[in-house]
């Protein structure tokens, strides 16, 4: 069980790392929101799942309640993360920031 939890945690942390690298590497504000908004949900879900599994291993009623709380964190992030991403990108459009386009595009 410990091995499963560790593997899941490593997986989730990999997703977080990928998200951080993506935020640095993508060219502009709008495309940076793609890794910021998405990889966090995956990383969070996997790490939270791992922690919930870890708390559940000696199964008891208290452990179940703690696990439910941890799962609720993931649920709320699933609702708020796209909304927050949308709010940020909408603020960018309202402020008049032009999206980055590829310059080398012969047919445009």
């Amino acid at each position, binding site marked *: 069980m410990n091995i499963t939890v560790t593997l899941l945690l490593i997986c989730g942390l990999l997703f977080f790392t*990928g998200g951080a690298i993506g935020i640095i590497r993508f060219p502009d504000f709008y*495309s940076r929101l793609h890794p910021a908004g*998405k990889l966090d*949900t995956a990383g969070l879900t996997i790490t939270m799942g791992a922690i919930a599994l870890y708390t559940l291993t000696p199964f008891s009623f208290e452990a179940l309640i703690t696990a439910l709380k941890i799962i609720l964190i993931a649920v709320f992030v699933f609702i708020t993360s796209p909304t927050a991403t*949308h709010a940020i*990108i909408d603020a960018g459009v309202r402020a008049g920031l032009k*999206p980055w386009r590829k310059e080398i595009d012969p047919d445009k």
Partner: protein
Amino acid sequence: MASIETITSDDNQNRLAPKSQMPTKPGQKRFAAGPFILTFLIMACFWVIFSGKFDAFHLSLGFVSCLIVSFLSSDLLFPTALKPALIICWLRFVGYIPWLLYQILLANIHVFYLSLHPRMMELIDPQIIVFESRLKGDIARTTFANSITLTPGTITVNVTTRGKFAVHCINKQSGQPLPGVMEAKIAKVFKE
């Protein structure tokens, strides 16, 4: 977004007002038993999970505060009257969630691959595409917009009151399947 919500909630008020027995003055709340009880049950569930204590003192505290909260804000959580159709709609929505989770997994792997790819700049071609959606309902559109944001390579930028969606895509391929399958699925969930 705010303007959409105010318009439709006004519509709902007008539609419901003649039917209700109690005359509603502006500023006075209609009391509806169904939403009140349901809000109370949801709040009570959350209280029990979050407090995790089962002695009489904590449970009675929770009972009182759930009563107060559900009295004040049951019309916030359920702006329309509870109809069987709405509940069936929720059940269909639960059936939509596994597909959405699968799409989210795909989205994450896609962005993960992109952000670690050594020649990332050649793969991406960010652009904003605009398309009309045939979804009419408020919740249907919100669900659609949030689902777009969660699926591979796309983020919703803006939704107008006439159902025009502006979507930021990371490359051309990810913008191709929109609206497509997802809109059909959401239309099926909300019966539109």
